[in-house]
């Protein structure tokens, strides 16, 4: 079974999309650092915006890869992107303030190795294979990093693995005058964090579904670039909404609500745009209405 899929020539070239995607994703992730600078967490939603930019670019990359007829369906490309991206993202967050950059570089290297395995060892012989898998790994890693930053307000390893602090009090020696002193130690709690509670896996699959869905849904003879990309933004905002709801567990109520409001506004707008573009591309459509109850003998 080898179905040839056609990729539409769009207004935006793939390199333009890549530059926009990487820049917006990195800037969005870095803007969450304003949380640390200002001391309030309302800037977390920028991480989600960055993740959507990465997904927007990734859905176009998937289109170019899958137009070669992999024979395995479009979803597999989304799965390998996030499988490689998850490894790069978690390892990349160890590097403090440089984490987003290191994540990007690590993802590119992992993607290149996996692409080489697929292209040269498994003998796929697809010209864009290595470069596409590099890009998709970057998309996966930056999407997960952006959503994780949105969920917890930070993109650093300690913030992602430490959910809270508990105080432990142990009686120490009796001080002069007979007063009992206590030794107070701060113990970090790991099980209630994003990674420690494995909530990252939810982000993993939210991102993977959002990455593979747009081209999978829009492919066909009259696939057009702006419609596919608008669907990518729409499903991106939908995933961002779920992440915003998850962020109630990690952020204060105001910051999490800002994320929910931003994602809902974005989703409603992009959904309306997508429906308008679908009607534009459709041959004809019928605005179906409920069957009217006709009175009398008719």
């Amino acid at each position: 079974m080898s179905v040839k899929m056609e990729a539409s020539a769009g207004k935006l070239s793939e390199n333009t999309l890549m530059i926009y995607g990487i820049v917006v994703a990195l800037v969005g992730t870095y803007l969450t650092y304003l949380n640390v600078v200002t001391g309030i967490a309302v800037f977390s939603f920028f991480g989600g915006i960055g993740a959507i930019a990465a997904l927007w670019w990734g859905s176009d990359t998937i289109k170019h890869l899958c137009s070669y007829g992999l024979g395995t369906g479009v979803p597999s490309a989304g799965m390998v992107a996030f499988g490689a991206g998850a490894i790069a993202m978690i390892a990349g967050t160890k590097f403090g303030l440089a984490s987003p950059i290191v994540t990007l570089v690590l993802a590119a290297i992992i993607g290149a190795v996996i692409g080489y395995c697929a292209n040269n060892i498994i003998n796929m012989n697809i010209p864009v294979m290595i470069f596409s898998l590099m890009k998709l790994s970057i998309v996966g890693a930056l999407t997960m990093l952006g959503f994780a930053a949105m969920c917890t307000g930070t993109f650093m390893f300690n913030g992602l693995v430490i959910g809270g602090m508990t105080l432990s009090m142990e009686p120490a020696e009796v001080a002069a005058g007979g007063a009992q002193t206590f030794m107070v130690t701060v113990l970090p709690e790991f099980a209630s964090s994003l990674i420690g509670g494995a909530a990252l896996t939810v982000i993993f699959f939210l991102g993977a579904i959002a990455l593979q869905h747009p081209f999978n849904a829009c492919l066909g003879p009259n696939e057009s670039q702006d419609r596919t990309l608008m669907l990518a933004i729409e499903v991106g905002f939908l995933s961002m909404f779920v992440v915003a709801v998850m962020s109630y567990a990690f952020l204060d109520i105001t910051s999490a609500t800002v994320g929910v409001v931003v994602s809902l506004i974005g989703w409603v707008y992009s959904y309306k745009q997508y429906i308008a573009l679908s009607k534009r591309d459709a041959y004809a459509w019928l605005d179906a209405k409920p069957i009217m109850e006709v009175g009398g003998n008719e």
Partner: protein
Amino acid sequence: MSALGGAAAGGEGINPTGTLVGIVILLVSIAATYALGFSIIPLIGIIIGGAFVGFGVHFVPVGGAPAAMGQAPGIATGVAMLAAGAGLAGLFGGAWAFEATGDFAIAVAGGAVGGGLMMSITCMMVNATYVFAMGIPAASGKVAKDPITGDTFPEYKSQGTEGHGLPFISFFGGVIGGIVTGLGGTLIYLALLGIYETGLPVIMQAEPAAIQPLAISLAGIFAIGFFLVNAVLAAYNITGTIEGPHDPKFKRVPRAIIGCAVASAFCGFISMLIVLNTGM
């Protein structure tokens, strides 16, 4: 630029240059792990687990869209989805068995049983749907006789199809595939868990008991990532549909094993950087 390219070339046989470079990447990953002061035993576990996943995926009868229309044998979905289902079921089984017993052998066996059970239930329900809902008999198009039961197929095969339903050999292949992929996924998980259980308390300066949930979560998330990478690489090797161990495409399995081993080795090396003290 209406059509970017034709069908995938996906030739048979092994590409010697690519394989050689791959083996060099594998050896460099092992050497780098050793040079950074880690034990290489867990990395070997990850590599073997990845190779098991790549090997096991080839047993699973994957029919794709034609199978949904009764025009090809196999389960009507993609390779990556089926492998992820079997492997993750195995992974959960293995992780639970390790939590309950703490015994390596029982955990690996639990993973294998979990994956095999998931695939056998899937295959049985798929066949029930084919036979009782779609009304089609099981017949393979690639072989004339079932290698295990000796049932003949040509009389039951509809004209114009490549066969349909899920013959016994495909069912058998599915269960074996579930067992092998579940075993591989559990091996990867246990290797990673070993690294993080010993490494994280040192680097985070915390009690081993307090760090336990973090180690389990990290190993689980990484294992899912590894699993999907290996399953998709194997899916690329199959390029579409496969009937099971009797399918001619099964002969391509060596290059999937090499490819998955190389990818696992490199990803395993990256995953160990978590417990490397970067001073940040």
